[in-house]
């Protein structure tokens, strides 16, 4: 290459549109096409059959040796080189044509209707045709129309055509549907949608407006996709207040099963109006075009000349294509002989798709010869030659090329540039003893970029020029010190090579450049070999690496490769040197699966998203590696207890989401995200090999590197993984174990298992003892019992207790029934909870913890702490009511043990007297009161000390022992006494009434005086105690 010349020439030489290149550059870059197919009948994708060279096709058909009417269609996919071939035919024809042959080459350079007619009129041979002035006026009379106005004209003309459809076209729709479609098209939202940048109107506009930049192979048509209505679009249509008919149409397009079909039918229906609409908007009628051709042919006939017409691209004629084809297929003999038309030989280029859909059957039938250009038009050597010729031509000055052209462009005289850069690089032979330097390419790089840099359907000359030659050459010209700086799609990178490079080169940018060079310019293998004293690293000579400022690495020495195998890449399907040479014991099917998984990972590390949600197939391998094997490895290799994460915590984490996830994964989440990097790719690949090659062991060739890789990776990410699962990352947040302990302490109090008035004696022992069932008959408030019921529901209390037990258990391996406590940590945590008086501020609770079981602990505590205030208030209210009864009886709120003992004694005496007077009242037992006098007195005083708005925890602890129950015997006794006194009053009254008459008459007043006085006295005492 000669960079100095190429810098100026590249923009002239590298033109994807062959028509715009100069004739010299065109011929200097031309590579003979030898794989053409000849057919008599249209076949969109012909296979098999004989290959013809372009020379053979020219000699037999294009040259028209029999001087007959012919219509040759040259077709193939977009970019396969149809224009190039037609231009070459034209150039060759110009050199050998008979004197009476007029050649008309219709370009598509401005790609418009009027531009095409202008090209026709510019030909010197047709200067004298009839009506010339009219035609010129027609072309020049283009009224300048604003772009948006012209597009609107197109759009509304379709509605006009639709409205006035007289059913003269082959595709018909019902009146109802037509009205719906019309309403649909008239909708403002639909209008904006179809007028959008990628919409159908834009495509049609490009065919009539001048100076538009669109894909040359764009077809001016409606596509079914134009009418697909998404939910969002429908919503917009609906919101804009659409006509009901328009909405119905939109709904039809939205239907899951029939929507696509409806869209397809209506697109085809509207396409029937495309020609009429375009012609009307362009101001040209079909008749104009047919007439132009008739006049040209008549003029040539008059001049005794014949016409050979080369049409680069018939799609340029959208709008008048029918008319044009009609004109071209008219023979000059037979019934038309009287029209005095010249003979016409037409060579017309078209895409396969356009030919299939836009040529009517009667046109197809009258095509005399089909020439098909396949997509893979070049074999490897032709591909190298294609690139070599472009590099060579841009390294030659225009003068040198023009001199060669003026000397008939003889291949034997083909000029080869003086190599200024890349003399040590590869060359390609082009015959006549000439060799072209491929710098800045290698054969490997051309093949790699062709196979993996171009998408399917784009592996054609146009895209080789646009996407391979131009960017790479520009890169070396403008950025040689960072070459290759273009971001390439690296496919199925060998992980050993990737690891080797990134491990040995710490400068990431340099390492990435070297990886690109060795993968794309080399063979992508971690190997080196010597050939004629030159060392090749991954197939790239060391001298090239040095020239590019890249370091050379040491890899395993291998034998010099077989020249026939040269250029293979790990991604090449036919052979995989890494797998076949390094892993001989692994079945081929397994190797292929692993290789495919590696290819997906390579794409991911290159920036693509990754979806490995499927459990089967190749992505299933990645899924197993990441979500099963790697997670399992990290769980077992990280000593969580040593890292301060208890076994209980890890078990909770395991039951939550996955430990790992990948950057840019489309579904799912994990605690630690692996970045989309070469290192992650290598590690995942290592685990895939562990499972697939080693059957879940490291017993496979080259596992030594994989085992090293995964251990050094584990060492590197350990701290981050630990941090990701820890619940103690934020200092301000409370660890869940603290919440569990606080909740358990509340439970101990609420269930009466801890009844002291201070937390001081709440020892760790309480936390580990089994729970006792709560007494059903207690005197707690409804709220208290409700909370107890809530915290014991569905075993929540047992689970919380188990959390505490396992959290502080220092386990061995997978666990054991024997619990060994981390006592210092347990004591520290219990102390802390007690110091904080079981309080944990809600904002410090990790209620959004991604680990559900840890979150459950906080919610459990929150359930309690949200309610304890109400519970304590209710409990105090109830107790106050009860204790007031006692205060009232004793007429004091300072009650001592002696007061109660005195009450008991008096009650006993009371019942004794009743007994002695033989009044039938059952004796109430005072034993329970007497026995519990101490507790009762304490309970009364404890409750008396409580303030309703006092400390909640104090209140709970006061009532933990259920003091109301303790007071109950006294309450019961007081109530019984009250009842019995009342009964006694009634009985005495009855007796008195009975005695009153007898006493007065018999003088027996003194008979019961003493008993009466005794009863009166006791009764007064009892009453005084009320």
């Amino acid at each position: 290459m000669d960079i100095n010349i190429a810098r100026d020439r590249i923009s002239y030489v590298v033109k994807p549109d062959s028509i715009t290149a100069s004739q010299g550059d065109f011929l200097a870059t031309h590579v003979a096409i030898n794989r053409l197919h000849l057919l008599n009948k249209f076949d969109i994708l012909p296979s098999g059959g004989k290959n013809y060279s372009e020379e053979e096709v020219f000699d037999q058909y294009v040259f028209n040796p029999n001087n007959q009417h012919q219509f040759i269609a040259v077709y193939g996919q977009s970019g396969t080189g149809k224009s190039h071939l037609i231009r070459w035919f034209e150039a060759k024809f110009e050199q050998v044509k008979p004197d009476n042959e007029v050649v008309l080459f219709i370009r598509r350079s401005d790609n418009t209707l009027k531009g095409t007619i202008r090209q026709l009129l510019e030909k010197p041979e047709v200067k004298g045709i009839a009506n010339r002035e009219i035609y010129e006026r027609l072309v020049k009379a283009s009224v300048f129309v604003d772009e948006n106005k012209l597009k609107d004209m197109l759009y509304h003309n379709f509605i006009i055509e639709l409205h006035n459809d007289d059913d003269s076209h082959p595709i018909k729709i019902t009146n109802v549907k037509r009205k719906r479609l019309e309403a649909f098209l008239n909708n403002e939202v639909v209008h904006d949608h179809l007028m959008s940048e990628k919409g159908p109107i834009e495509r049609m506009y490009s065919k009539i407006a001048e100076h538009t930049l669109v894909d040359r192979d764009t077809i001016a048509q409606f596509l079914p996709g134009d009418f697909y209505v998404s939910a969002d679009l429908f919503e917009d249509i609906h919101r804009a207040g659409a006509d009901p008919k328009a909405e119905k149409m939109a709904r039809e397009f939205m239907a899951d099963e029939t929507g696509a079909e409806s869209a397809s039918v209506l697109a085809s229906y509207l396409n029937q109006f495309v020609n009429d609409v375009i012609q009307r908007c362009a101001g040209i009628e079909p008749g104009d075009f047919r007439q132009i051709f008739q006049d040209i042919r008549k003029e040539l006939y008059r001049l005794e000349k014949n016409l050979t017409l080369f049409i680069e691209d018939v799609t340029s004629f959208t709008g008048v294509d029918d008319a044009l084809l009609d004109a071209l297929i008219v023979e000059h003999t037979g019934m038309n002989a009287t029209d005095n038309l010249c003979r016409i030989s037409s060579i017309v280029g078209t895409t396969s798709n356009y030919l299939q859909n836009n040529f009517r059957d009667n046109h197809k039938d009258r095509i005399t010869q089909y020439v098909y250009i396949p997509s893979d038009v070049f074999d490897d050597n032709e591909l190298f030659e294609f690139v070599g010729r472009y590099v060579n031509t841009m390294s030659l000055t225009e003068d040198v090329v023009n001199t060669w052209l003026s000397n008939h462009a003889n291949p034997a005289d083909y000029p080869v540039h003086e190599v200024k850069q890349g003399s040590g690089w590869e060359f390609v032979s082009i015959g006549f003893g000439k060799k072209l330097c491929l710098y800045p390419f290698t054969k490997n790089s051309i093949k790699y970029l062709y196979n993996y840099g171009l998408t399917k359907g784009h592996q054609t000359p146009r895209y080789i020029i646009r996407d391979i030659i131009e960017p790479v050459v520009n890169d070396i010209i403008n950025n040689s010190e960072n070459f290759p700086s273009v971001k390439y799609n690296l496919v199925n990178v060998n992980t050993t090579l990737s690891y080797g490079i990134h491990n040995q080169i710490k400068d990431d940018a340099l390492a990435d450049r070297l990886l690109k060079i060795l993968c794309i310019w080399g063979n992508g293998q971690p190997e080196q070999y010597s050939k004629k004293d030159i060392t090749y690293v991954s197939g790239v000579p060391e001298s090239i690496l040095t020239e590019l400022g890249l370091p050379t690495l040491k890899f395993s020495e291998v034998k010099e490769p077989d020249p026939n195998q040269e250029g293979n890449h790990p991604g090449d399907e036919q052979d995989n040197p890494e797998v076949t040479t390094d892993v001989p014991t692994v079945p081929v099917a397994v190797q292929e699966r692993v290789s495919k998984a590696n290819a997906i990972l390579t794409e991911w590390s290159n920036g693509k998203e990754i979806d490995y949600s499927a459990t089967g197939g190749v992505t299933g391998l990645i899924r197993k590696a990441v979500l099963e094997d790697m997670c399992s490895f990290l769980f077992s290799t990280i000593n969580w207890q040593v890292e301060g994460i208890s076994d209980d915590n890890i078990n909770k984490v395991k039951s939550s989401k996955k430990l790992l996830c990948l950057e840019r994964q489309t579904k799912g989440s994990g605690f630690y995200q692996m970045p989309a990097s070469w290192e992650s790719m290598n590690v995942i690949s290592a685990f895939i090999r562990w499972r697939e090659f080693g059957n879940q062991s490291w017993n496979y060739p080259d596992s030594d590197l994989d085992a090293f890789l995964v251990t050094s990776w584990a060492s590197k990410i350990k701290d981050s993984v630990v941090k990701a699962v820890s619940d103690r990352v934020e200092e301000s947040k409370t660890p869940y174990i603290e919440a569990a302990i606080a909740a358990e302490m509340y439970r101990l109090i609420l269930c009466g298992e801890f009844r002291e008035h201070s937390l001081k004696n709440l020892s760790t022992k309480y936390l580990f003892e089994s729970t006792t069932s709560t007494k059903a008959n207690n005197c707690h408030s409804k709220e208290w019992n409700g909370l107890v019921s809530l915290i014991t529901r569905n075993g929540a209390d047992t689970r919380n207790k188990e959390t505490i037990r396992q959290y502080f258990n220092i386990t061995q391996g997978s666990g054991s029934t024997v619990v060994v406590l981390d006592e210092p940590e347990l004591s520290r945590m219990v102390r802390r909870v007690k110091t904080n008086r079981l309080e944990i501020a809600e904002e410090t609770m990790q209620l959004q913890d991604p680990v559900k079981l840890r979150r459950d602990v906080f919610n459990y505590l929150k359930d309690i702490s949200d309610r304890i205030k109400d519970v304590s208030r209710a409990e105090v209210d109830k107790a106050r009511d009860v204790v007031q009864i006692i205060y009232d009886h004793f007429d004091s709120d300072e009650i001592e043990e002696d007061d109660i003992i005195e009450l008991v004694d008096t009650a006993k005496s009371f019942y004794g007297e009743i007994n002695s007077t033989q009044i039938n009242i059952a004796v109430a037992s005072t034993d329970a009161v007497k026995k519990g006098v101490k507790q009762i007195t304490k309970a009364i005083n404890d409750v008396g000390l409580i303030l309703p708005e006092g400390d909640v925890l104090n209140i709970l602890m006061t009532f933990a022992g259920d003091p109301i129950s303790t007071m109950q015997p006294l309450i019961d006794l007081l109530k019984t006494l009250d009842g019995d006194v009342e009964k006694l009053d009634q009985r005495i009254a009855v007796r008195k009434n009975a005695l009153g008459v007898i006493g007065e008459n018999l003088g027996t007043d003194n008979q019961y005086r003493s008993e009466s006085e005794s009863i009166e006295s006791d009764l007064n005492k009892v009453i005084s105690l009320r």
Partner: protein
Amino acid sequence: MFNDRMATPAIPERVFTLCKIVEKRPISSSDLKERMEPEFLHNGSSYYADYRNAAEELKLISISDNMISLAVNPDVIKSIETMRKYINGQLEQFKNGLFYQVTSAYYSLGNQVLSGEKNVAAMAPQMSQLIGRPVDAMAMRAWRFWVSFLGFGYLQDMFLIPNTDVFLKDLINNAGFEKKKRYSFGEFIERLRPYCNIVIDTNPSNRKINYGVSNGLRALHDSGCIKLEHILDQEDIWNLYPLKAHAITGTVTNITISK
């Protein structure tokens, strides 16, 4: 654990906890047991003796008149990492112990372990043969806890992938190398010699470093802790286990302790 029988309950974390309890003040053995395995747990059986013995073997604690005291400077048990570093400096005292001999034998197998049993417990017969004394599956299960804790390798379920990076890092710190100074590799090994024979060939003339230690050295090199070099004119050449893809493919002559 280190002198003779390897017992699964004697795990490092329990030894560390025990030491932390006695760090405060000497405590009777029964009280210590009650702190770690209190009666109220109703365990039924006890592991206490196993981990207490391990702590005693390692001279972390001393027992006198049934009172247990911390036998090392409290800095040794400042964290479980400092305890590990201390233990790694003591291992050579247990040359005749089962743990030492099994570890030594495992690493002498080099990369062969990768193609052997997937469960270390199943390696017991092989280990018995290699060291010439009985080793049972239970002992191998106990061995895995300590060998991974001390940084000789990475557990993958019941398999140990050899990579001594953590162990070597402790030894380097114990040996007191001067930072940023380039040592010949032979000198480096000689300074580690009092602590490293458990996994590094005792015959210096062999100058071969096995797979697990090579992995450890390479991992430390990759993480920037050390810098391995092969300087062409040096004669003190040591052979690491060859890994062509690594920057240090096989031979080394010098080492610099970076951090």
